[in-house]
């Protein structure tokens, strides 16, 4: 694994207020990194610092080894980005827009433009003015604009904002494909958790300007211990029984039965208890927590710590 983006102790201060506080993380090639946080947490600010739109108060950001502060042109030549909405020149055609941005990078040929247009599926409409485009098409044109110069790093701020489910899926597929096939490092920010779950390999959670956690999506969703649901009717009785036999476990009543947080090895013992007490057991299943639940859990935890 090779880190293409290194974010080192970055702090951003505006008028004495710390907007971003000592953030550090790396993103590797071929990886989709999700940047998750509630509105106003500092996702967009961090992304703007990575692409050099706003200055860094302390710390440094390196892209492919070049510092964005001291070696801006080299660093940014490896980056393709959409920051918030992909605003284009509406009075020009999609093609003119791409031509415009292509001229600003070294060695982007006309063939390359055509290839990128083909890739995002805009070939039919590329000669039309951007003001006639739908939001989805603008988003795709935005993606095309990022890919013109074959960047190593792709940064997409809220890429699915305002898209319909088909559009979201399309963008998601593109992103996964670019990371897998072109070995790009992709940073995606969003507050839509379900989507991050499907798109990302790793997730960093930012809250109040601080990076509170970085985890692999897989670990993140599952956490350390699992929750199993026992499908049964006499829920109260089951809960009482477990309280006596396994006081260390947390038991919750759900609509189907009871949910118990525990390890797999403990299942047979619990089943034995239910059977001996004549409770009819209809099924046992593992409950995977959604990213959303985990996210709220983590942010709540940290907030609790912060408030104490």
């Amino acid at each position: 694994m090779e880190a293409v983006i290194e974010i080192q102790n970055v702090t951003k201060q505006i008028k004495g207020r710390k907007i971003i506080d000592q953030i550090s993380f790396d993103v590797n090639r071929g990886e989709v990194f999700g940047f998750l946080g509630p509105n106003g947490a500092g996702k967009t600010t961090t992304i703007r610092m990575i692409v050099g739109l706003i200055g860094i108060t302390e710390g440094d950001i390196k892209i492919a080894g070049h510092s964005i502060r001291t070696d801006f042109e080299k660093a940014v030549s490896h980056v393709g980005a959409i920051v918030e909405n992909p605003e284009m020149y509406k009075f020009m055609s999609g093609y003119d827009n791409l031509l415009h941005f292509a001229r600003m990078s070294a060695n982007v040929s006309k063939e390359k433009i055509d290839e990128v247009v083909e890739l995002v599926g805009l070939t039919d409409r590329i000669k039309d003015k951007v003001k006639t485009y739908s939001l989805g098409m603008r988003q795709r044109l935005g993606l095309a604009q990022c890919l013109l110069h074959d960047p190593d790093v792709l940064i997409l701020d809220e890429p699915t904002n305002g898209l319909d489910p088909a559009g979201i899926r399309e963008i998601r597929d593109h992103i996964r494909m670019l990371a897998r096939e072109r070995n790009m490092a992709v940073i995606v920010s969003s507050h839509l958790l379900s989507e991050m779950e499907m798109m990302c390999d790793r997730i960093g959670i930012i809250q109040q300007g601080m990076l509170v956690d970085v985890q692999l999506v897989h670990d993140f969703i599952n956490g350390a211990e699992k929750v199993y649901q026992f499908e049964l009717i006499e829920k109260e009785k089951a809960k009482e029984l477990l309280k006596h036999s396994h006081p260390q476990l947390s038991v919750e009543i759900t609509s189907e039965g009871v949910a118990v947080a525990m390890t797999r090895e403990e299942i047979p013992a619990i089943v034995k208890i239910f059977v001996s007490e004549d409770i009819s057991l209809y099924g046992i299943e593992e409950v995977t927590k959604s990213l959303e639940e985990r996210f709220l859990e983590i942010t709540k935890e940290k907030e609790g710590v912060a408030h104490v």
Partner: protein
Amino acid sequence: MYKLVQNELLKIFKRSGTYVMIGLLILIVTVVGAFVKYQESGGTVPDNSEWKQGLQLENTNLEKQVAELEGQVPDSQITYYKRQIAINEYRIEHGLSPNSAYSVWEFVSDNVSIIELAGMFTIIIAAGIVASEFNWGTIKLLLIRPVSRSRILVAKYLTVLIFALIVVALCFSYSTVLGFILFGGPENASPYLNYHQGTVTEQSMFMHLLSSYGLNSVNMLMLATMAFMISAVFRSSSLAIGISLFLMFTGAQLTSLVAMKYDWAKYILFANTDLTQYFEGSPLVEGMTLPFSIIVLVVYFILFQLLAHLVFKKRDVAA
């Protein structure tokens, strides 16, 4: 840099507003031409062989007025009379009849004031060229290219200059072509008589027109530079257009008001933008010279550019 300028021109000429501006310029020159042509066909050129006596008569009248009015009316009016007298004398001496027909050159010369309008359009372009990128939100995509911010700003300024050159050249060449069609070429190339500090000199008409268009453009260029600076510093094209146009229409008058009381008026930008004062007529404030004005203009120019660059380079592009 060439590609960046190409980009900026693309953005200007893909907008319909630009063509409206150019259309207006052409329309106004055409209307002026039609108007002059219509007037001309009403009366004929007085082809008086006794023109020398006529001029002499005019001169004695003027001299009388100068003697009477000196000290009572502003100096500029006296200067105007003196200039007229000197030119008339020169004509009598060298046998240059003032009674030549209205020709293409007179028409082009009359159209010099169209530069004000061309200047206005240049200001509008200069005011929008940076601020619009912020309004459209495209600044974010523009500044994440491997091109430094200063180079982008320089390219944008060069584009303003090119646009100014295009509109002035267009006015000049269109007036010339239209003048030829409507009024025909001059029968005998009559020179332009220039009066400067008591002496009259002959100039080729074409050179006179070129320098007259060029000198008149100085004002417009300085205002466009100022609009460009405001645009880059405040990110507001309406503010830039507002301030620049206001100063364009009132700057000269306000400065001459100040100049009546205070000597430091000569350091005001607008006291120096009209360089024709050194070639024809007299300077606004006593003691001003051409090199002085050029230095003042250069200082203002550097100040505007520095401000624009410093602020644009340091700016955090948020929202």
